[in-house]
């Protein structure tokens, strides 16, 4: 009987929660609490119980009865107030405040900046319209250097140019702030190339430069591994392989272990397990000297992160030209 009482209580509680109109409520009340209702049917059994059991179960029966009365009273209150409310269709779409959006490049730039600044890299800015000297010559790329071929340049009247990389700020910043130096320079660069879904003539880079005493290749790897883990919000693995850039010596390409297949090989990494991420290297002594830094005392590393490529990776954007299209159908998604 004890079990019967308890399961009846649970059953009623459940059914009360499921009712959809006040008619049903009335029906349930008659079914369970009416004179011939199920509760009374159970209570009739009290008289058949052993003498010793009767007081305890009698008390339990009363408790259940009161409990059910409260439950029914609450449901009646809920259902009696429904009629007075205004008509309301909560399934209509929510009314939103008109809020704008930041450009995806801005979002990713600020995200990366905050990871760097936690490691003490300050953010610096400088000219986008640059002189031949700071974009090339000061970086150990004299006028007839073949490396100029790999960076087709937009030239301007007055023999100036649109910077082809954010590395243009390396010597500017060293001249201005001296050593030790730790900074990043995000910004737009331009290359005179034809455009398609994966190439645009204007895009974002993020340059990093650290100059201090006893800076090593091992420091570069560790720093980048830490920073990239922060940016990708997971532990990442990187590797260095030789790469040639006139303003670093030694120079490297840094690869990141494929985040899609974890290095097992897939279409994203062309089965190699690694994805090329950025050029980097130890700052060339000539660059340090152009920045008035004594290369006998100081050494450093520099790297050039493709910010636009990170944006495309993060949001899986398949056409780079959307970024500068100003198309609100695209921009409103961020």
């Amino acid at each position, binding site marked *: 009987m004890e079990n019967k009482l308890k399961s009846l209580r649970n059953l009623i509680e459940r059914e009360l929660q499921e009712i959809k109109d006040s008619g049903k409520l009335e029906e349930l009340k008659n079914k369970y609490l009416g004179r011939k209702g199920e509760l009374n049917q159970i209570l009739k059994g009290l008289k058949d119980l052993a003498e010793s059991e009767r007081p305890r179960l009698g008390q339990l029966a009363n408790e259940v009865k009161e409990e059910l009365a409260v439950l029914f009273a609450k449901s009646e209150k809920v259902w009696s107030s429904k009629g007075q409310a205004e008509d309301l269709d909560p399934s209509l779409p929510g009314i939103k405040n*008109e*809020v*704008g*959006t*930041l*450009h995806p490049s*801005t979002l990713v730039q*600020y995200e990366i900046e905050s990871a760097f600044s936690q490691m003490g890299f*300050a*953010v*610096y800015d400088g*000219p986008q*319209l640059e*002189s031949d*000297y*700071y974009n090339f010559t*000061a970086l150990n790329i004299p*006028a*007839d250097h*073949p*490396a100029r071929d*790999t960076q087709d340049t937009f*030239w301007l009247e*007055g023999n*100036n140019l*649109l910077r082809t990389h954010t590395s243009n700020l390396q010597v*500017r910043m060293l001249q201005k702030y001296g050593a*030790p130096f*730790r900074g990043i320079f995000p910004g*737009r660069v*331009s290359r*005179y190339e034809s455009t398609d879904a994966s190439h645009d*003539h*204007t895009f974002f880079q993020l340059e990093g430069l*650290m100059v*201090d005493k*006893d800076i*090593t290749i*091992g*420091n570069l*790897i*560790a*720093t980048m591994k*830490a920073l990239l883990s922060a940016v990708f919000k997971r532990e990442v693995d990187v590797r260095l*392989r*030789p790469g*040639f850039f006139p303003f670093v*010596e*030694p120079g490297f*390409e840094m690869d990141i272990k494929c985040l899609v297949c974890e290095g097992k090989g897939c279409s994203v990494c062309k089965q190699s397990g690694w994805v090329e991420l950025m050029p980097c290297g*130890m700052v*060339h*002594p000539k660059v340090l000297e*152009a920045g008035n830094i004594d290369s006998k005392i100081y*050494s450093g590393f520099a790297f050039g992160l493709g910010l636009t490529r990170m944006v495309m990776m993060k949001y899986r954007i398949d056409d780079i030209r959307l970024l*500068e299209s*100003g*198309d*609100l159908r695209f*921009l409103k998604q961020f």
Partner: protein
Amino acid sequence: MYLSLNWVKEWLKLPKDLNPHDLANALTMSTVEVEEIIDQSKNLDKIVVGKIKELSAHPQADRLQVCQVDLGETTEQIVCGGSNLSKGMLVAVAKVGSQVKWHGQGELVTLETVKIRGIESNGMIAASSEIGLGDLFPSTDEKEILDLTHFHFKVGQNLSTALDLNDIIIDIDNKSINHRPDLWGQYGLARELAAIYRLKLNSYTVKDLPDPKSEIKLKAEVEAKDKCYRYLTVALKNVTVAPSPWWLKNKLKAVGIRSINNIVDVTNYVMYELGQPMHAFDAQAVVGHQLRVISAKKGDKFVTLDGVKRRLTEDCLMIADSEKYLAVAGVMGGQNSEINSATKDIILEVANFKASSIRKASTVIALRSESSSRFEKSLDPRLTELALQKAVELILNLNEEAYLASAVVDIDNNPFAKLTLEVPEDLINARFGQIIPTKDIKDILTRLQFGVEYKKKIFTISVPSFRATKDISIPEDIVEEVARCYGYDNLTPSLPQVALRQPILDVEHDAAKSVRFYLALSQGYNEVYTYPFANMLWAEKLDLKVSQHLKMTNTLTQDLAYLNLSLLPNLLARAEENLRFFKNFKIFELERTFDKSKKSAFATDANQDKFLPLQNKHLSGLEVSATSSERAFLQMKGTLQSLQHLWQIDWTWEKIELVHSQVAFQLKNQGLILGTCGIFNDAILADNKFKVKIAWWDFDFSTVLKYISQNKFYQSLSKFPSINRDLAILIDKNILWEDLEKELKKVSPLLIKVEPFDVFTGTGIPDGKKSLAFHLEFKSTDKTLESEDADNLLAEIKQLLNSKFSAILRQ
């Protein structure tokens, strides 16, 4: 650059079990970037030598024949439309399952058994271009089948085996060997592989030159001494220009070169083997058998081998005889002295030119060649001797009648002295970040053919001549050589241990970030980025002077011709495009603009005496809405007033007249213009079918930064309640709110706020009038105002409105 494994095997024994992917990976990790591995035999998979046993006309098609082809183990029936089919002919048969290109074009398709006009065909008798051999076996007619009869191949064998097309070719990214002149030939690549795999490298052998007959008096003269470091030339007589033998064609194919004839092919062969370009002239075309290395005269014209007439400048180094130009030195020969089928005598030239000079000339005449791209990397002048000997050896081998007809003329201006570097062991370890055992350093450098001596922790390193022209010049270069061969994977990374430093306050960065978030997240703006190039159509509509725009000097298209003087033209162009999908929107951009007429504070170099053009950042926005001009303006004004609050700048609004705008204001602070704003004329859009208004604003952000105030202080909350009253009046429609407000404020300092909430004209309002309703708020700072006080002031205000503005009170 292609690396042919068959070719390098001439000098080293690669490990038998070496997987090409492992080799590509080893090259990638220690030397260069590999783009692709090409397996020649894979392209000829299931393609075999067949013999046509029987040939009969196709019953249903005039141009097709039905062939029974012997494939060794089987005989297959194949329907073919070839124009040169004959019984007994040896042909290339692409079996069912192989991949071919139909008519040598389009994608590869896999062959299946098919019925061609009712007759079953099991495979294809291929034309050379259909199986990727068009360059080895050029055909004149597209119906011409590849005829292999003269090879006498065994029937049924794989074509790749028969033709010796079983090479593995590693495609190396040219960018990654920009700094390594020694890797532009197969021998140099073999040397690098030997160093990586610790293999024995056979030395490069050439035969001594035979004694010459002095039949040709060859003369050479270098006038431009500073641009030509070595010049070697020799004459040969009695050559027979003919197609090259198969082995030579095949080698050139492996490195991606088309065979031309047995003379030109030898010069190419030597270039691809040693990395040293060379040239052969038809001796008959060289007047007086005299070669001169001179600079071109500006404006002269010259027709290169490819038939293009080139306009020269003084930057072009030329090879000439006593009368005319013969070649653009190091770039390309001339049509006038080209080797042709009638050529009998030739003059060979092997030279070394200054890298920058070749690069300049090749830029001037807009011609990159295999030769110029090698010279511009700074080749080793010593290579010339080997190359000349090798070329003579090969030409004499291929031309039995030929002989050396002159002595070698050798002009040597080699400026590269023997290079020795002193590199402290500490430097290597300090840069690497970990100790590399001394014996490993020695071993690596020796493998790379550096001479190494070690004393008192200092390495004295003699650099081999093929690395000493530019590539290796400072101790850091040696660090790289050691580190890349030791392996970056063997390095344990460690974070730098550096001192703390002062935080850096960056007002501009902080202000840019906060205003971006503010406009996007509180003002409903979408941030856009547009290109730095000006849209000149819109610039003109905005009355911006072309002459103030910076012009590009090397762009060809109109949309890349000028830099932005203002962000507004591009924003307008973007807005116009968006009107196809949206009628109400707001966009902004924060970017640099470029002004030709002013200078920035950025110096062009360390001398600090010349400065770059002004390139201040601007913050500009557009609000596009389908509404009245007044509403559009007031919405935009609200945005700008929010910015005033954000920046704590109390600028003034001065009305100005602009041709493109119906109303416009200058925003000034302490006499300086911070920005401008306005509403464009409706006609600014050529097609404005939605009748939208475009409000615009533009700040010189660099100037705004100077006035952004951090001094925002709290004001104590008033202890005394205020009294609010509303008034509605009818007044002349031309009366401005600001005039009304100014007069009302004069009534009493207790009137702390006057704020309009409804302006109305039209139905029920007399012509020339408007209805204006506004809130008034009275408050005292030192007592609680009584209702009476407010009523008295209100009466005074009503009086004033009536007398000054002839206002009629509304109920």
